[in-house]
């Protein structure tokens, strides 16, 4: 037997197909298809958790996604453990382990329960008022304490072993919700020929038909019709039917996010299956058929385990075959709860009373109750409940308080009526309007191309819902361009038309400020808290929400919003529309981080870009550093070498012999066209028309505000063709910057830009022996100083493949940069290395490159500049043409702030103690004894140990730096103050003779 509360013959599960699971260590039997909630109730377990603030015993309240109480820890194995899983959503699979949360030492005896006794101290706004002083105590004491005490579940510690899938999908019509309305709309749209996606959060279609017992559609029982229709839709080529799939977010321009739960219900899922699949749907039309959510009644001690929504009671009985109790009371303000009583009674469960706070319930349900012999107390309210860990009795009184009596029950079904689910409509930025007669917010002004149908649109009558849905489905299909097919006709009949409903506190929630009549179960917010908020001056619903935290839990107030609003409106003496509804945000229900992160983890988190020579570098034992998405060889340590040793050796070797360096990541842009030089004249501060083909020039690029944006060497290959290089990190933005000006400011120029960064592998060979190394490999290029002087470029062959050979240097040595088509990069590198190694040359990485260029005072844009330096500040004003009538930045350079004295300028720094290496980023002051806050003159931008200089060297930006040469300044550090002398930036080979070999 799968639980004492399982009713033989009731429900739709197959009794023979059982699954075993554990709850807090106790092994239980469920049926396949059970949710954790239905299985627990079948085993007569209602107590499943402790509340967030007061640690009050809590049970299962609903049977759906709106569940605020039954949040459990569900695990498949050690690594697959998830906290805060709604028991009403999670399906049972064989072998699953379920544990309750937020209790210690046990669920039945929870020490935190004393919070309930202390509750006068935990009034709304308690945290804001109490945990204020001292400020430092917040992080040290208060926050950790609150997090421990007021916890939800415990986060898993192991990496998630599952994988998640993602699909972009497009459709004509997306239908959200597969109840009567959604199924009918999807059918109409599909028959009209539209490409349809229909999704529903439940494991099967049917929506409200899953709990219903009295509806027929086309002569079939409602649920059967739904399954047949679902199967028919799934079989159509133009329909994608997704169950266990929640539409969690409605974003701009009909972009809707769905999460499909693929394996969470399976005992032994195929490892190849993703745990969840994220669908990013772009729909021409969206049809919202979200349905409605039942509200609970707000009265004293309405949160005891065993108190459930009436529709939940019906779902457990009619779908899962489980009675919520043996003696079930009903407390309602709406006719629908009567049907729960009828279903229970027909299943043989005792229903001692239906308490209806209305004087005039619907005639039809009253009649039926009489027929079934169920006592109905009209104009009565439940004013209190008893029962420690499970409801034991209700106290019922005539409205006004007279004639109170106790009635023993072991469960109570409640209903205050139905709240249309306008969540997705609201997320779409549609504006709701308040319907005063039915006291509900309904879709008002639409902001996006969608339609609401059925219960979420306030349509109550079944046939009206069907007709509305069929019309909407066809309309949406036609509007999306579908031209096919037949019209659909359906007729439906339900057992009872429902009336009634109330929002706000019922009798028994009391004006009494000590009564706990819960509105928001998940955040323990009571009716009195809303009143307190109003008394304390909160008049906007947004303020009341934040003061009380009503509706701010992970259920986003699906049950509580309307009650809270009504109580606030009453306390404020205003109408509900004047108080206003809070905004609904994505996601509709919580979604996993796995679904959001999806493929973006591990090696797919970000592209790891590797150069053509990467595998050689790896084989040589290079350490790599990240530069943007690139992996660049950082240094090549030999056995036993520290980074410092390796870099010092590489630096010496390059200057003494030669070094080979992978410069492939440098950005490269080919600028081609008759107006190429004219375009570069505008993009760089330098003049380009006088650069002869075969020669190169170092260029500075500014933004129009006058600040340095990028730099690089530009080679002219032909009159109409330039090979532009950019910084490694700057390549995409420089191309964007150039395209921007070319397309929008200088469109008359006949020139085109093409990124060639990845076309070329670049092998820099630098040092006194550079020419000797490459010479025998090169064909068709005269490498002599005369034919190929410093800053020139020639095309020819190396190792039999085409090359663009640059004579240039970022080290101050005789240097070449060998560009070859990328696929040849490694082979050419190896050929060069085969010559370089026997000569005593080394391979060097980016760290050595940085040191060598700093020895020469060459700046790195982005390290030595920070977007606020002009060419003059950076010491490269020689590169700014004085003759050109225009270039980007020409006017910005003349701005008053950019020409005034005292600007921060790049200078060299030499520590008085040559062995001390400054820290990059360290601040610089003139007077180390100045009281704090000290006057900061600037900071260190680059700092290294230079083995070639035999001392430390540094570059820094210093206010008025160029006028301070020779001055002593100070760098205050935590443990000492370092004295430095301001110098020029060239620390090695000041004459520059080595460049020319």
């Amino acid at each position: 037997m799968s639980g004492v509360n399982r009713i033989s013959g009731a429900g739709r599960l197959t009794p023979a197909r059982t699954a075993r699971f554990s709850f807090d260590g106790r092994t239980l039997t469920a049926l396949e298809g059970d949710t954790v909630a239905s299985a627990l109730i079948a085993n007569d377990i209602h107590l499943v958790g402790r509340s967030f603030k007061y640690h009050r015993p809590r049970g299962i309240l609903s049977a759906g996604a709106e569940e605020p109480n039954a949040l459990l820890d569900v695990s498949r194995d050690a690594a697959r453990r998830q906290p805060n899983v709604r028991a009403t959503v999670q399906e049972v699979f064989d072998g699953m382990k379920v544990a309750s949360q937020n209790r210690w030492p046990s669920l039945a005896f929870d020490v935190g329960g004393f919070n309930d006794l202390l509750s006068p101290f935990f009034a709304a706004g308690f945290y804001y008022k109490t945990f204020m002083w001292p400020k430092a105590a917040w992080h040290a004491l208060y926050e950790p304490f609150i997090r421990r005490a007021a916890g939800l579940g415990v986060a898993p510690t192991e990496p998630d072993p599952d994988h998640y899938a993602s699909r972009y999908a497009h459709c004509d019509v997306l239908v959200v919700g597969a109840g009567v309305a959604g199924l009918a709309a999807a059918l109409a749209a599909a028959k009209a020929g539209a490409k349809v996606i229909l999704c529903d959060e439940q494991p099967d279609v049917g929506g409200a038909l899953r709990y219903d017992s009295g509806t027929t559609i086309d002569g079939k029982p409602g649920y059967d019709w739904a399954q047949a229709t679902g199967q028919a839709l799934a079989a159509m080529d133009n329909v994608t039917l997704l169950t266990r799939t929640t539409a969690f977010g409605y974003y701009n321009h009909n972009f809707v996010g769905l999460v499909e739960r693929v394996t969470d219900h399976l005992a032994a899922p195929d490892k190849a299956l993703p745990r969840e699949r994220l669908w990013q749907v772009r729909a021409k039309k969206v049809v919202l058929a979200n349905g409605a959510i039942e509200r609970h009644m707000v009265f004293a001690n309405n949160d005891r385990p065993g108190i459930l929504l009436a529709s939940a009671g019906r779902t457990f009985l009619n779908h899962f075959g489980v009675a919520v109790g043996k003696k079930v009371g009903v407390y309602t303000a709406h006719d629908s709860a009567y049907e729960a009583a009828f279903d229970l009674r027909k299943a043989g469960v005792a229903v001692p009373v239906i308490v209806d706070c209305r004087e005039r319930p619907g005639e039809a349900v009253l009649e039926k109750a009489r027929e079934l012999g169920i006592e109905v107390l009209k104009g009565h309210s439940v004013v209190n409940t008893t029962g420690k860990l499970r409801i034991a009795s209700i106290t019922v009184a005539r409205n006004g308080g007279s004639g109170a009596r106790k009635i023993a029950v072991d469960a109570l079904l409640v209903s205050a009526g139905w709240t249309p689910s306008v969540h997705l409509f609201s997320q779409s930025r549609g504006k709701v309007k308040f319907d005063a007669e039915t006291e509900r917010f309904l879709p008002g002004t639409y902001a996006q191309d969608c339609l609401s149908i059925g219960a979420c649109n306030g349509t109550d009558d079944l046939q009206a819902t069907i007709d509305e849905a069929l019309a909407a489905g066809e309309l949406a299909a036609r509007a999306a361009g579908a031209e096919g097919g037949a019209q659909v006709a359906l007729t439906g009949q339900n057992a009872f038309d429902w009336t009634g409903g109330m929002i706000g506190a019922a009798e028994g929630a009391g004006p009494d400020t000590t009564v706990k009549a819960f509105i928001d179960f998940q955040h323990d917010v009571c009716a009195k808290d809303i009143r307190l908020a109003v008394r304390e001056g909160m008049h906007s619903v947004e303020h009341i929400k934040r003061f009380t935290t009503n509706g701010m839990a992970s259920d986003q107030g699906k049950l509580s919003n309307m009650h809270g609003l009504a109580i606030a409106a009453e306390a404020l003496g205003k109408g509900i529309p004047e108080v206003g509804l809070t905004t609904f945000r994505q996601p509709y229900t919580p979604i996993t981080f796995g679904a959001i992160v999806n493929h973006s983890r591990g090696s797919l988190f970000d592209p790891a870009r590797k150069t053509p020579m990467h595998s050689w570098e790896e084989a040589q034992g290079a350490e790599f550093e990240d530069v943007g998405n690139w992996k660049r060889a950082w240094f090549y340590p030999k056995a036993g070498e520290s980074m410092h040793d390796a870099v010092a050796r590489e630096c010496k070797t390059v200057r003494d012999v030669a070094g080979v360096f992978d410069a492939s990541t440098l950005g490269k842009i080919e600028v081609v066209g008759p107006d190429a030089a004219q375009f570069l004249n505008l993009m760089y501060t330098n003049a380009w028309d006088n650069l002869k083909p075969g020669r190169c020039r170092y260029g500075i690029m500014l933004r129009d505000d006058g600040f340095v944006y990028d730099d690089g060497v530009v080679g002219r290959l032909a009159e109409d063709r330039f090979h532009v290089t950019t910084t490694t990190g700057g390549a995409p933005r420089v191309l964007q910057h150039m395209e921007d000006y070319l397309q929008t400011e200088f469109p008359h120029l006949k020139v085109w830009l093409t990124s060639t960064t990845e076309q070329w592998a670049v092998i820099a060979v630098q040092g006194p022996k550079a020419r000797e190394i490459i010479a025998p490999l090169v064909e068709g290029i005269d490498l002599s100083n005369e034919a190929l002087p410093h800053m020139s470029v020639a095309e020819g062959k190396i190792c039999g493949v085409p090359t663009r050979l640059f004579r240039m240097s970022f080290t101050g040595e005789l240097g070449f940069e060998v560009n070859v088509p990328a696929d040849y990069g490694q082979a050419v590198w190896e050929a060069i290395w085969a010559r370089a190694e026997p000569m005593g040359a080394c391979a060097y990485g980016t760290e050595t490159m940085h040191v060598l260029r700093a020895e020469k005072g060459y700046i790195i844009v982005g390290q030595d500049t920070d977007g606020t330096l002009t060419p003059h500040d950076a010491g490269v004003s020689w590169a700014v043409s004085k003759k050109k009538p225009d270039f980007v930045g020409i006017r910005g350079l003349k701005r008053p702030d950019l020409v005034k004295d005292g600007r921060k300028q790049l200078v060299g720094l030499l520590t008085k103690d040559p062995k001390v290496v400054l820290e990059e980023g360290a601040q610089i002051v003139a007077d180390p004894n100045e009281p704090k806050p000290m006057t900061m003159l600037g900071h260190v931008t680059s700092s290294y140990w230079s083995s070639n200089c035999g001392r430390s060297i540094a570059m820094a930006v210093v206010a008025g730096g160029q006028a301070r040469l020779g001055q002593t300044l100070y760098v205050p550090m935590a443990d000492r103050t370092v004295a430095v002398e301001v110098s020029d930036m060239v620390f090695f080979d000041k004459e520059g003779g080595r460049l020319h070999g």
Partner: protein
Amino acid sequence: MADQAIATRKVPLAGLRGGSHAAVLTPAAPAARIALRAGKDAVPALSAALGVTLPTRPKTSASTAKRHALWLGPDEWLVIDEDGAELMGAAASSGALHSAVDVSHRNMAIIVSGPGAEVAINSGCPQDLSLGLFPVGACSRTIFGKAEIVLLRTAEDTFRLECWRSFAPFVFGLLSEGAEDAAH
């Protein structure tokens, strides 16, 4: 020089095969490619010189034998020759004003083939790839996860997906996951 061996070519993803029964992933053989830019006036002369009619409608391509011209923008084409034939010289011989830049080594291509090819690519590409909107011969530069790609549909169930060479492992990896999901 004569005694020097000619450098050998090492292509990204060499020898790799992947995907699922729904979408097979195969790195394409090395090809010749140019990024071609030109105004409308130059189209006839360039088409004649290249032996393939440069398409002028968005999202369309033209092919003759192993040579394909893909419309990427109003003045931009990617010309691919699967046999590796020289394209720069051919474009230059047109005599028309244009920019041709050799990008043979910048790009590499992965062939995605099978009934799940669309789904595999849609794991990271936001475009609607249904046959109605992206028919055989359709092409587009677009985005695939965090990489830019150029997509060409060569058959109902086959796409040629071009990306920059350093993005190839990322693209192949994401496609592999998409192909796996397409099989389920």
